[in-house]
C-alpha cells in the first residue's frame, strides 16, 4: 500500500524564509530552518510541508544521489527522522524524533542510467517501474527482457528487489533480489556506499568476491540506507511462449508434482492455483507452466518433455491448448471479482517450503470456510522449488466492503497457521514483525539490531520498520 497524504497541506511556495548561513539555530525557528535547508537542496518545487499527528513533516522529491546525500547528512545532524520507500508513512508517530520528519519521494529519480547488452544488466534509479523498464527494453533492446513483477507492473523495481519479490522468471532464476548485481546506497550518516563490482570497476556486472554487503540492504525495509541506483540482471527475450496446464484433485500430490516439474529445469514460471470461483474450478488443483524459447525448436522441445511427464499418470490431466474463457477463469485474479461482485477481498502472503503445502492448503481452506468466504490460492514456485510464495486470497462474494470483520480474523488465523507449520509470513508491518521476532533466535535478533546500530546509530532511517529488534 502506498503512502497517501492525510494531514493538512502547507504549500512551500510563496514563502521565502531567511537563509541561515551562520549555523546558529537560535536565529531562526526550527521549522523555518529545516524548510530553508531542504529548499536549498531540492528546490521549492520539490518540497511540501504537512502536519499530522502533531508532527510537522517535510515531503521532498529529490532528483539526484547528491541531493539525497545532502538531505540525509542534514537530517542526521539535526536528528530528524527520514522516511522513504514503499509504505513509508506515519503509522507510528511516536517513532519520530523531535516532532519533525522528512519523507523522501523517489519518484522523480526515474533514469535508466545504463543498459549493458552484452553482459545483460540495467542500472536503474529508484523511481523506475517495471513497466518503464519493459518499455525501454522494448524500444531499444528488443533482444532483452527483465524479470517482470507479475502482479504489479507499476511497482518500482527497487521495491520488488528489496522485498524478496517474485517475478516472471522466479522459478528458474530466483527472486528479484537474487538478480541484483550492485547497489549505490546513501547510508544513514550521509556517506555513499557502492556495493558489488561497481565499488572497484566502472561496470556493475557482479556482486561477488568482495565482502558481501548486499545483504545489509535486502529485506531491511530501508532502515539501513537509501538505494539510489540498482543494477538488475536482464535476460534474453524469449519470443516463443506457451502454456501447459496440469490438473488434479488431491492436494497431497502437489509437492510430488512440483518436484517432478522443477526437476526438468525448463519452466520459467510455475504457479499452483486453486479457487472456488468460478464454481466449476472448485476442488481442482491447477499447475500452470509458462514455457519459452528463443526459437520454436527450443519451445517445442520443452513442450514435448512436459507433455510426456505425466503421460501415463492416471490422476494428472495435461492440457496444452486452453480456450480463452478457461484461461481467463484460471488466471483472473480477485480484483476482477471485486468489481463484478462487490466482494470483500483480502489476502495473506507467505514463504514456505514445498513439503508443508498440503497441510497449508488443507488448513487454509478450513480457516477460510469457517467464515462466509471463498478461497483463491495462487502459489508461486520460486527458485526450482526451494521455496514457495503462497498467496492465500479470501473473498466474501456480495459482501459490502464495510463487512470486513472476517478478514482480520482470517488473516490472523492464517498467519498463526503458517508460522506453526514452519513458513514465514511476508507481511512484515510493525505488528506482524512482533510475533516473528518473538519466535526468532534471540542472538539473531540481537545481531540484526547491532548491525542496524552500526549503520544508523541515531535511528533516523525508517524507524517504524524492524523496530522490534530493538525492543525485543
Amino acid at each position, binding site marked *: 500500500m502506498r503512502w497517501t497524504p492525510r494531514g493538512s497541506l502547507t504549500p512551500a511556495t510563496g514563502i521565502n524564509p531567511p537563509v541561515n548561513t551562520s549555523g546558529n539555530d537560535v536565529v531562526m525557528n526550527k521549522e523555518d530552518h529545516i524548510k530553508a535547508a531542504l529548499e536549498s537542496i531540492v528546490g521549492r518545487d520539490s518540497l511540501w510541508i504537512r502536519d499530522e499527528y502533531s508532527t510537522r513533516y517535510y515531503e521532498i522529491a529529490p532528483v539526484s544521489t547528491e541531493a539525497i546525500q545532502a538531505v540525509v547528512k542534514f537530517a542526521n545532524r539535526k536528528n530528524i527522522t527520514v522516511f522513504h520507500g514503499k509504505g513509508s508513512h506515519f503509522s507510528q508517530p511516536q517513532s519520530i524524533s523531535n516532532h519533525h520528519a522528512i519523507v523522501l519521494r523517489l519518484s522523480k529519480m526515474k533514469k535508466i542510467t545504463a543498459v*549493458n547488452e552484452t553482459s545483460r544488466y540495467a542500472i536503474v534509479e529508484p523511481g523506475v517501474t517495471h513497466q518503464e523498464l519493459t518499455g525501454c527494453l522494448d524500444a531499444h533492446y528488443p533482444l532483452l527482457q527483465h524479470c517482470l513483477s507479475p502482479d504489479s507492473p507499476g511497482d518500482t523495481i527497487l521495491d520488488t528487489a528489496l522485498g524478496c519479490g517474485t517475478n516472471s522468471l522466479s522459478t528458474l532464476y530466483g527472486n528479484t533480489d537474487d538478480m541484483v548485481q550492485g547497489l549505490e546506497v546513501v547510508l544513514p550518516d550521509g556517506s555513499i556506499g557502492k556495493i558489488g563490482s561497481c565499488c572497484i570497476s566502472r561496470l556493475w556486472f557482479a556482486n561477488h568476491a568482495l565482502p558481501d554487503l548486499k545483504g545489509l540492504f535486502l529485506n531491511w525495509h530501508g532502515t539501513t540506507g537509501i538505494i539510489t541506483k540498482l543494477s538488475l540482471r536482464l535476460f534474453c527475450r524469449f519470443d516463443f511462449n506457451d502454456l501447459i496446464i496440469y490438473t488434479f484433485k488431491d492436494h497431497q500430490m502437489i509437492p510430488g508434482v512440483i518436484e517432478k516439474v522443477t526437476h*526438468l529445469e525448463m519452466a520459467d514460471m510455475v504457479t499452483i492455483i486453486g479457487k472456488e470461483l468460478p464454481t466449476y474450478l472448485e476442488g481442482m488443483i491447477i499447475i500452470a507452466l509458462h514455457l519459452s524459447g528463443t526459437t520454436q525448436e527450443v519451445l517445442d522441445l520443452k513442450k514435448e518433455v512436459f507433455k510426456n511427464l505425466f503421460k501415463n499418470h492416471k490422476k494428472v490431466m495435461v492440457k496444452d491448448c486452453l480456450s480463452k474463457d478457461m484461461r481467463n477463469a484460471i488466471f483472473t485474479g480477485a480484483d476482477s471479482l471485486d468489481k463484478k461482485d462487490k466482494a470483500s477481498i483480502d489476502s495473506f502472503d507467505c514463504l514456505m*517450503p514445498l513439503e508443508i503445502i498440503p497441510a497449508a492448503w488443507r488448513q487454509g481452506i478450513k480457516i477460510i470456510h469457517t467464515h462466509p468466504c471463498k478461497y483463491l490460492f495462487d502459489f508461486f514456485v520460486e527458485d526450482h522449488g526451494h521455496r514457495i510464495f503462497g498467496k492465500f486470497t479470501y473473498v466474501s462474494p456480495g459482501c459490502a466492503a464495510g463487512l470486513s470483520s472476517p478478514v482480520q480474523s482470517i488473516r490472523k488465523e492464517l498467519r498463526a497457521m503458517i508460522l506453526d507449520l514452519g513458513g514465514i509470513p511476508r507481511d512484515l508491518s510493525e505488528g506482524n514483525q512482533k510475533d516473528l521476532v518473538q519466535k526468532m533466535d534471540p542472538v539473531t535478533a540481537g545481531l540484526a539490531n547491532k548491525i542496524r546500530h552500526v549503520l544508523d546509530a541515531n535511528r533516523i532511517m525508517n524507524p517504524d520498520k524492524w523496530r522490534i529488534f530493538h525492543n525485543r
Partner: protein
Amino acid sequence: MGDNDPVYQMLKDIVGEDFVSNRQEERYIYSRVPSGTRIGDFRYLVLPKTVGEVREVVKLAGTNHIPIVPMGGGLSLSDLTVPIKGGIVMDMKRMDRVLEVHEQSRWVLIEPGVTIGKLIAYLNKNYPRLRISVPDAPPSATMCGNVLISGSGHLSKYGFHSDMINGLEVVLYTGEVCKLGSGSISPYWFSRGPLPDLSGLFINWCGCTGIVTKLSIKLYPKHQFRELVIFKIEEPGSIPDAIQIITATGLMEDILIFAMKPERSHNPTTLLLLFITADSEKEMKLKKNLFENIFSDYRCNGRRILYKPNDLFPGKLIHDMMAEPKNGLEDTVDAKKGGGVGSIGAIFSLEKVPLAFKKGLEISEKYQFTGPLYTIRNIGLGHSMVMGILYPFNRADEKSIDIMKKALEEAMEMVYEGSGVPWKVSIDKQEKTMKKMDPGTCDLITRIKHAMDPQGIFNPGNWDKSTG
C-alpha cells in the same frame, strides 16, 4: 611444552587431548597452503567436534586476545587460511555430519567439515535425484569453505555458490551461537528472506566475522544423462558471442572455456566445453543436435567456432572433464614439477573477456609459461565470467618463485585495468583492492568488520587496510 602452557591446557579441556596440538610437525603442515606462496606460524591447532566446543574455544580466544583461523580443507590457493598473526588454527574437519536433506524442497544442512567428496557420495547413495553444484576443487575441499568464498561449479548458470546459501549457523566473537535465514524462526532452512539478510556478513569475509558451524545449501536436480559437447574457438574475440548464443537457450548445464598453450607455439588452443543434461535419450539427442548446429553459420573476423566430436580427444581428457569431483588437477598444479602454483582469480563482465584473454597471453609469453593458461566459466546467463589463471612454479627454485610472483603482480594489474573484480583475493591483494575501492565502501567494510569482531581475533589480517 604443552603441560606448562595454560592456554594449551584449557584447549585440551575443551576438545580433548587428542584434538589439540602445538607440535612443530603439525604446525609446519598447517602453516601453509598448497600453493606454497605464503607461510605463517601459529601456536595451537584444535579440532573441535561440536558447536559447543567451537564456542568455548572462541570464548577462550576472546578472553586471552588470541587470533583464531578457521580452516576447512586448507586447499585455497589464495592464502586464506594461512595464520599470519599466530594464535589458534581451528580445523573444522571433525564437524563433518550431513544433518538433514530435504528431498522435495532440495536443500541440505551440513557441518563445516563436510567435504565435497563426502557430500557427493552421500547424495549419490541416498538421494540419487539430487546434486550439488560441484566445484572444480579436489574432493577433500570442504563444501562450506568453497561456498563461503563464492566458489563456482557445474551449476553456476544459477550463480556463484554463495548464491546457493539458504542459511547459516555461526559462532560470533562473543561465543554466542546465531542462526541466520529461515532457520532462525523455523525448523526449515529453506530461504534467506524475507528476513533481513544477515548471511552476507559471513560470505567472502574469509572468516573474519565469525565461525560458521552449520550451512544450509540448495540442491538441484540430478539428471540421468550428462554429456560434453566440445567446440574449438579459433578467435578469442568470439567468446562473448559464443556465451550469448548458448546461454540464450538456457538449456546448458555449464560452460567452461579452457585455454592451453603448447610449448613452442604462439597461439593457445582454446576449447569451449559445453555440458548438457537430460532425463531421456531422446531429450539428450534433441539438445545435442541443437547445440551441434548452433554455430554452423558463425564467423568472427573470418574465424569460426567449430564443433569437435569427442572422439577426436583422448578418452582420459573427456573422462577427467566429466568427473565429479574433478580429476586431474594435480597435473595442472604440478606442471613445473615443483609442487607450487600461483593463482589469480577474477570476475569479468562478458565483453571484457577477449581483452583479458589477450593481456593474459602477453604475460604468459613474457614469462614463458606454457601448458594450461586459463579456465573461464560462465556465471548466470552470461552475466559474468570467472577467469582463473594459474602460474605453476617450483618451490625449490627461487628464480621460479620470483617469476611466478612477477607474473601474478602483472596479472592482478590486468584485472584492475580490465574493469574486473579480483576473486578469492589473497591477503596481500586484499589491501590493494581496498585501496582501489570506493572509499565509502571500504569504510563500510571496516565498520562492519569492527562491529563483528571488535578485538580482531577472527582470521586477522583479512580485509584489513593495514595488512600487506
